[in-house]
């Protein structure tokens, strides 16, 4: 079987600084990491490979430095890595990004059929959660978002069964492959690759595809031209003022304390009490 995993290199948001005067976000010198959500997608693909054999291909669209992120994926056990990189992609929004990635994946399929496409739930920098669904739509594939578990995969019948986290519960879904899965976080844990994978990753001759190599003929569909969304400004929210209040306990009784606390919460959020009462019937 063949899985394609889309990953994005993002600035480590824990280390982003806010300019003290202009309140803009300073990205210089911030280390780049693999979008943490994408690791759950990759690990899930690797687990399927453990079980069924086959190939895991990782793809990213990004600047040349994104090579480091791909090498890391190889060191975890991915078999092949493709960096889609071209100045023409600069300024791409989710519409253009999903177009570029979908076209790239079509090109990959030309060499080896693809059974599953994985993406992360969302990125920690763009945060839109649109790229996965965008790729599925463009390829006309079934889309399984927020997947928490792959229950069954039948390669013969080309069927997959997954658990999907939905509001208020878990859905059990079955669909035909090939399809696209956006993997939910916390569903697995990235493995510690073995020495052979590490060596292979360090020496691997990465594929770098420019626009033409990725099979994108229409330059109007990508980059700034293909991007109707414009991020006009990025700024940090004003820190909320924080207040702490000491609440006295009466007779050291936790129940007493809970009631006092609830009373305080309800005075601040008057609707809440009614709603809880209603739900409790």
């Amino acid at each position, binding site marked *: 079987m063949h899985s394609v995993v889309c990953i994005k290199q993002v600035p480590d948001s824990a280390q982003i600084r806010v300019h003290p005067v202009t309140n803009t976000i300073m990205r210089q010198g911030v280390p780049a990491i693999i979008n943490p959500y994408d690791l759950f997608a990759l690990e899930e693909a690797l687990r399927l490979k453990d079980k069924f054999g086959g190939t895991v291909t990782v793809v990213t669209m990004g600047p040349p430095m994104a090579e480091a992120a791909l090498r890391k994926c190889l060191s975890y056990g991915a078999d092949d890595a493709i960096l889609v990189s071209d100045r023409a992609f600069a300024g791409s929004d989710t519409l253009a990004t999903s177009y570029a990635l979908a076209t790239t994946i079509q090109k990959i399929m030309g060499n080896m059929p693809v059974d599953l496409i994985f993406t992360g739930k969302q990125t920690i920098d763009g945060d839109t959660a649109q790229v996965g669904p965008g790729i599925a739509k463009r390829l006309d594939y079934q889309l399984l978002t927020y997947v928490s578990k792959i229950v069954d995969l039948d390669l013969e019948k080309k069927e997959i069964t997954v658990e999907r986290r939905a509001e208020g519960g878990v859905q059990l879904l079955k669909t035909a492959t090939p399809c696209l899965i956006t993997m939910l976080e916390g569903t697995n844990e990235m493995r510690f690759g073995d020495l*052979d994978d590490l060596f292979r990753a*360090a020496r691997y001759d990465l594929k770098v595809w420019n626009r033409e190599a990725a099979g994108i003929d229409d330059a109007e569909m990508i980059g700034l031209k293909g991007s109707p969304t414009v991020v006009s400004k990025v700024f940090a929210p004003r820190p909320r003022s924080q207040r702490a209040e000491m609440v006295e306990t009466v007779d050291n009784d936790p129940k007493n304390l809970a009631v006092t606390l609830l009373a305080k919460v309800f005075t601040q959020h008057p609707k809440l009490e009614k709603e809880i009462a209603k739900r409790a019937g």
Partner: protein
Amino acid sequence: MAEKFDVIVVGAGMAGNAAAYTLAKGGLKVLQIERGETPGSKNVQGAILYSDAIEKIIPDFRDDAPLERHLIEQRVWVLDDSSYVGTHYRSEDFNKPPYNRYTIIRAHFDQWFNKKAREAGALTICETTVTELLLDGKKVVGVMTDRKGGEIYADAVILADGVNSRLATKAGFHPEIKPKDVALAVKEIHFLPQETIEARFNIGEEEGVVIEMAGTISDGMMGTAFLYTNKESITLGIGCMLSDFKKQKTTPYELLDKMKQHPSIAPLIEGGEMKEYAAHLIPEGGYNAVPQVYGDGWLIAGDAGMFVNGIHREGSNLAMTTGMLAAQTLVELKQAGKAFTAPNLAQYKAKLDDSFVMKDLKKYRRMPDIFHKNKQFFTTYPELISKAAQKLIRVDGVDKKTKEKEIKQSFVASRSVFGLIGDAFRFWRAME
């Protein structure tokens, strides 16, 4: 793992990168193993880079190495709780390229240095810890790692694993490092807009200032402190001997907090955003604490071999130089078709003795002991010097001769005539 290497280098710090680069350039098959996520991710330095050492390895490093500021001014401060007495040396000569010293950020610099080593042909793997050395009798034949398929073999291993080299201790090459031979240093990076830094220190766009400090800020312990200007941040830190921390029961961060509140230091970092906090050991045992640094199939370079000149705050340059010399020894032997046996590797020690590394360490060999035994250098003297300076400067109707007499008396009262002569003599002997 079936693949075998000529040399395995443990660590991708200054010593390890210098060694891997030199080995790869010399045509040897090199594997470098680093436990951090990336080279430099775990490394702590002030950090001042001395051009000379890196120039000998990569002459055109200035073309693309990530350098923060070149240093044009050196301040040396002796502090008591409310003042500093200092000398500032600033010279236009330091503004003429090629520059002599730079501030750097190790996380960036180490990645660049490692990239050079990889481009030269070294293979680097990260997030992999060497857990022990593989021995055949007394000969090192490879390393064991924490990865699946963990054993890797090589004809020689260079231990560039930094201070407190557990691997060498575990293999029985030298005893555990002693608390009196290491300093524990803590440092913080405070981010400030570039313009603010340049205004505060009266410097131009690429220029930098160093402040080296000692005095009562070390709370009576043997130690020093520093403050360096980077492009968009200020690094400051303080370090004292581990044995003193143990005795005094002060915590390093308490010291650093106190330092940051010092009236001479606080305004320099005001308004900054603290973004990084790090603690690290510095091997400061000096010449007498340098262990055996070679044997059958192994060499030690950098902090792992105690190669630090604490008096002059030099460490990275000794690390790079020892890494380079260790590698050169192996390259020469390989070219001559000789095995990496202990008698052959003795050439490494000869190279070390012949370099500034051992010469400088030897010159200051008495220093650590003297400072350990004479804490007045960190307590009494800073206060006396500060009071003396103030007395001379303050205009209060007292005549100068009386002032000088009082200053003299204050010194004698605190240290006695014999004490003063003794201290001067000890200091002179140590510097000789």
